[in-house]
């Protein structure tokens, strides 16, 4: 046995919350193919099968709850599993979104007993609570085919693997519809038949893909696989010479770590917007500080400024013994070429200010206003956090000529003074889909002191003040 294959048939289903899955028949559908791809036991009992069309499934089981299939979710989970497996074995190759190859030949040198290696692999996967099928064989493709078939056996020799494989239908090879059809059309349905035909006879009749596949099947050709690489991140730990209880004294050792981060980033042409600092007390408590920057940053001193702002708010009950700095979300550094005439400095200042405010007040406490092309005044602006990078919408049509007050009240207040109307009405009728139709006639009005108001009247003849003109 050289190759191990792990197949996770129901990753997305496994990820779903238990209560959701167990409440009733439940299926995951592929919207592009319009068919069922994963389903729970209750759905299976009602006759739902894999690849069944959505209409037939619903016709069979009216209570069927469906959600759409998301490959990305599965790919991410697969990465997580590989990350865990990396702790127990090397030579991992991903076969997204549902499979992992492991070349066990190197690891088996380390483990005197391959059973032990297998045990630790199973143990690792079990932590993730996902269902899986597996097999081992002499080549990656054969291990995969065997795992997909669900034999769930580790096969020790090539012969026993071949015995299984020969009975497989050629559709298991995923050759594409045309090749598969062409093979069926000459009576070849099982791998045994395919393997019995001399390669040279097939080569003059079929494309190279089939020939390669046969090579992989026989283990004569080496398959190109995508090796798993754990993601690149920065993580350094610093044991302090002595316990520090005064937080201001921590700055120097932190700077040391930050400088290490800086050189780590520079040497890899990376940068980051987010780091985390973990302070471990002598009692073993852990204090974690997440720091964000509005723009990417690698400068150690700039980071220190931001960290200092965070540390200001921490009161230490116990002295600190260990510091660790982690930078996980790293990205390629894009050099900014500053133009002499551009306002990028001002932009940079703004971003620095936002970063400072965010660090000081918290990421979710810094907001800005964004316009929205909506008729209802209270809906025409929206507060967004500064990290929201959606583009501001542009205004078109008649509405760009509308006159709006400089100061809009958050909540309209009932108008209690005499005013004189100074404009013709602007009628807004909208939002019927959320509640009852909103109808308002807006006017510009003036009070006795010539202050200009933006007021509206409701169909029930009640008047409200909604804003002030400058």
């Amino acid at each position: 046995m050289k190759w191990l294959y792990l197949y996770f048939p129901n990753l997305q289903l496994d990820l779903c919350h238990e209560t959701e899955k167990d409440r009733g028949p439940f299926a995951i559908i592929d919207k592009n193919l319009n068919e069922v791809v994963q389903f729970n036991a209750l759905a299976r009992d009602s006759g739902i099968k894999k690849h069944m069309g959505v209409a037939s499934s619903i016709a069979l089981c009216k209570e069927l709850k469906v959600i759409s299939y998301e490959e990305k979710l599965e790919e991410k989970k697969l990465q997580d599993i590989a990350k865990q497996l990396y702790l127990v074995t090397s030579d991992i190759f991903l076969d997204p979104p549902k499979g992992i190859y492991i070349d066990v030949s190197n690891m088996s040198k380390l483990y005197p007993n391959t059973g032990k290696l297998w045990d630790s692999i199973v143990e690792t996967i079990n932590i993730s609570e996902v269902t899986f099928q597996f097999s081992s064989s002499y080549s990656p493709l054969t291990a995969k085919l065997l795992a997909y078939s669900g034999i769930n056996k580790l096969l020790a020799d090539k012969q026993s693997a071949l015995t299984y494989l020969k009975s497989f239908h050629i559709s298991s090879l995923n050759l594409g519809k045309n090749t598969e059809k062409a093979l069926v059309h000459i009576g070849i349905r099982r791998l045994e038949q395919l393997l019995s035909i001399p390669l040279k006879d097939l080569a003059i009749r079929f494309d190279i893909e089939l020939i390669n596949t046969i090579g992989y099947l026989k283990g004569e050709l080496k398959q190109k696989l995508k090796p798993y690489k754990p993601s690149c991140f920065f993580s350094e730990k610093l044991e302090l010479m002595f316990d520090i209880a005064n937080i201001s004294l921590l700055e120097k050792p932190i700077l040391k770590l930050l400088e290490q981060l800086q050189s780590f980033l520079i040497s890899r042409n990376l940068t980051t917007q987010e780091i985390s600092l973990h302070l471990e007390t002598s009692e073993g408590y852990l204090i974690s500080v997440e720091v964000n920057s509005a723009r990417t940053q690698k400068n150690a001193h700039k980071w220190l400024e931001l960290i200092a702002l965070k540390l200001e708010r921490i009161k230490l009950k116990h002295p600190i013994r260990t510091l660790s700095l982690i930078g996980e979300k790293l990205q390629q550094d894009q050099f900014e070429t500053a133009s002499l005439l551009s306002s990028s400095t001002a932009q940079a200042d703004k971003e620095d200010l936002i970063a400072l405010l965010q660090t000081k007040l918290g990421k979710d406490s810094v907001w800005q206003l964004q316009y929205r092309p909506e008729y209802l005044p209270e809906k025409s602006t929206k507060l967004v956090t500064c990290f929201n990078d959606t583009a501001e919408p542009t205004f078109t049509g008649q509405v760009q000529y509308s006159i709006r007050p400089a100061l809009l009240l958050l909540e309209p207040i009932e108008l209690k003074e005499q005013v004189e109307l100074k404009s013709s009405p602007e009628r807004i009728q909208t939002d019927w889909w959320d509640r009852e139709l909103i109808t308002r006639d807006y006017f510009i009005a003036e009070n006795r002191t010539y202050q200009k108001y933006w007021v509206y009247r409701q169909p029930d003849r009640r008047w409200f003040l909604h804003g002030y003109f400058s």
Partner: protein
Amino acid sequence: MNYAELVCQSNFSFLQGASHPEELVQRAYELGYEAIAITDECSVSGIVKAYAHIKKNDLGIKLIVGARFKYENNIDFVLLSPSRRAYAELCRVITNSRSRCEKGKYELTKWDLASIKHCFVIWLPSITLGSNNQHARFLKGLYGKRLYIGISRLLEAGENKTLSLCHGLSFSHGISCLACGNILMHDKSRLALQHVLTAAKHAQSVDELGTKALSNSEACLRPKATLLKLFDLKEIELTINIAEQCTFQLHELKYEYPSELIPKKLTPSQYLRQLVERGKKLRFKQGISRQNELLIERELSLIQEMGYEHFFITIYDIVQFAKREDILYQGRGSAANSIVCYCLEITAVHPDKIQVLFERFISKERKEPPDIDVDFEHQRREEIFQYIYNKYGHKHTAITATVVTYRLKSAIREVGKALSMDETQIDFFIKNINRRDSEEDWSTQVKQLGLSEGSTKAQKFISLVNQIKGFPRHLSQHVGGFVISSGPLYELVPTENAAMVNRTVIQWDKDDLETLELLKVDILALGMLTAIRKSFELVKKHYGMGCSIPMISNWGDDPQVYKQIQKADTVGIFQIESRAQMSMLPRLKPQSYYDLVIQIAIVRPGPIQGNMVHPFLKRRDGLEKVTYPSKEIEAVLSRTMGVPIFQEQVIKVAMVAASFTGGEADQLRRSMGKWKYNGEMEKFRDKLILGMLKNGYKQEFAERIFKQILGFGDYGFPESHSASFAILAYVSSWLKHYFPEVFYCALLNSYPMGFYSPSQIVQDAQKHGINILPPCINRSSWDHQLEEQKGHFNYSLRLGFRLIKGLKRETAEVITGNRSKGKYSNVKELRSLNINKSELQALASANAFYNISDNRFSCRWELSNTHNDFNLFGRALDKDKYEIQPTDFDNLIEDYASVGLSTDLHPVTLLKNANLLDKYTPSSMLYTKKHKSVVTVVGLVIGRQSPGSAGGVTFMTLEDGSGNINVVVWLNTARAQKKAFLTSKIVEVKGILEKEKNVIHVIAGKITDLTNKLENLEITSRDFH
């Protein structure tokens, strides 16, 4: 104060206007407007509907014809037609701008603008469009005093800026301003619907629309008092001034037939008489009876009085072309079954055989245009189209439009999307609503399907779906209604491009043409005519006997042929081949032509819904007395034993029993088809029932008649059509009886058509002892053909290449063409013909190489060798080299996959031979079983049908190699065994056998899915068609 609305779009401005034209004119009338213009975007499609509504309800409001346009997205304006000439100009501009674009779009050019010499132009400037001064100079230069600026007061944001812009332009360029509403809705309650339409236009939901939506509901028809507050009096008065100048009315449109058909020295009337005289000699060779002479005179004078000569002559000309070209045709419809049409060779229905009264259909009183549909062979109808286009030119000819409207499903989808409902939920609703469930309307059903009953959104959803239903979505092409005119058609009605290349459609549908009393010629396609013509050719070729439809029908009723019909041996027979028809035949036992006329009309959802079939059968079988409530009714219903069966009879009953006038009867007829959508029929209910009670009829009879009229609405079949169809049913039965192999061959050569698949036709042929030969590379041609075979008395039927999926006709011709040099002896010869690989594969799949290659597998093995492509003179192919042999099962699968049928084996037989089936009764042995006995049948599911008239029942048709089995599945059985019922391809059914006069049904008890036994079989079942 008076007011005329001059800028108003109906829902024929698709996805903009949110009211029907009828609603707009009705509301404008109620508000006391003097006039209203319907100005849809580059269209006059809605105008006739508005006109018809005004006429029908006698509303005192003037209708102005106009249209709205956008030029280069910059100039927004409306054209109004004050005169007939201006109207022609408007139609021309629409036609030209539409002809430049694909279906549904238009593009105006500067030339179009410059060519407008008579229309009034209302320009709608906007601050958002810019360059207004430039546009003002341009437009003023073109139109001078005919140009106006339209001011609308919609209480929008920034409206004062638009107002001052308009007044400024008016002042500086000397253009008068007039008031207009920019109408999109008849009433403000349509705002939500208008938002839904806008959302559909932008493919967004209503809450995403933001400022793309209307900001309020002011674009509706508003009371005059409101308008007075918003506009200057002068601006309002100007609308009246313009409306007064618009004198053109739609009834002025007169249709002029091309005159080239009439010889110069003759009047149309004289010429028609001449043609009838000529035809008389041809049709009545033995001499004509006095009664028929009188009939001709009566019909001719009526035609002359109504001025319909051109119409008859035009159809005569078209059918004469068909006759010259040997294209089979048959006229039908009320006017078609007249003695004049018989003489003109438009129909083959002999006037002595049918008593459909001509006056009943061309009624002076009703001013209803005569109805003649002519069916042509479906494979050759295009030749007729081309003849008409060539003879009259594209400028004079176009096809009538069909307005495609929102139906329940599309309405649910559109509104659901607009209200951001989950798409899966929308799909779920659509798939699970049973439109045929007459007890529960759709809104109750969606609530049962999980739409939260109490929520506001749900209520809005239901109300909006109900509102949008029946809204037009786009114009499509009518199946064959041609409009032909002497002058350019675009002066009568605009035309636009259809989806099909080189086809143009007018902007009106058949109802519009009827309203305006314009005539159309219906050129329809009928597969059975193709099959009959091909049968005649084969009879001539193989038996040397010439046949024609009139010849066979004039030979009179042949008892042998009727015996075959009575046995329901009617697979492939026109109109009486469906399972419903087949189960009725042994009960009705048609013995004559008129029995067939009744049979065709009786087995339709109409009469069944109207509860009329059984009384007729009972009366026919002598189980119920034939009685008539009055003499008048007897005159109408005597030919159907007192039971109303035909549409004409129901109308006539309304006239004689409830004293409807001709005009009212006409309205009744028009409402019949639409009552489900607009509930118009309810208006007639009281009138009909009270009228009948007054004339002494019983309440129960009156109620029954009304119910029948409702039933007829959707499907009611006119006697005049049934009479023509019965001829074709008889002729096809005659051919099947006397020349079965010819009939099957011609039928298969006319595919696609009819009710059965080629596989079922071939099985029926085999049941009739016809020897079927598979497609063969050395014997077959494109079409199926008859072949003499040793050991067979009759001709055998050789399947043609046309049956092979994936093989082109041209390739088949290459194969047959090269065959003249001798027969093919190996596969390599075929390869040397440069036939593409996939087609060679298709031939191999069909086993067409069976006499030059061992089997399909080895043949394909040879074909797939790419090295041979360059090795024409290479080594001889070693046939023995490939060892995998196809099994019977392989062959069966390939047969079904490539030609859709197997000449040797049936899947059920195959399963039986392999001992995979428990004991069952084959279909051919079912007749030996007793009524009500328990039986087990096995078969391939070839159809699941849930007919509208059979509540709670679904029929399954099974096929087991020895014949078909009709299985009745009750709703509860289907529900309980849903999985087996819905998904199986091969089933075993245990149930109770029911026999009634040779009609055998199996009432399903237990259904077992056997599909896994034949997993790969590629058979598609015709589910729920």
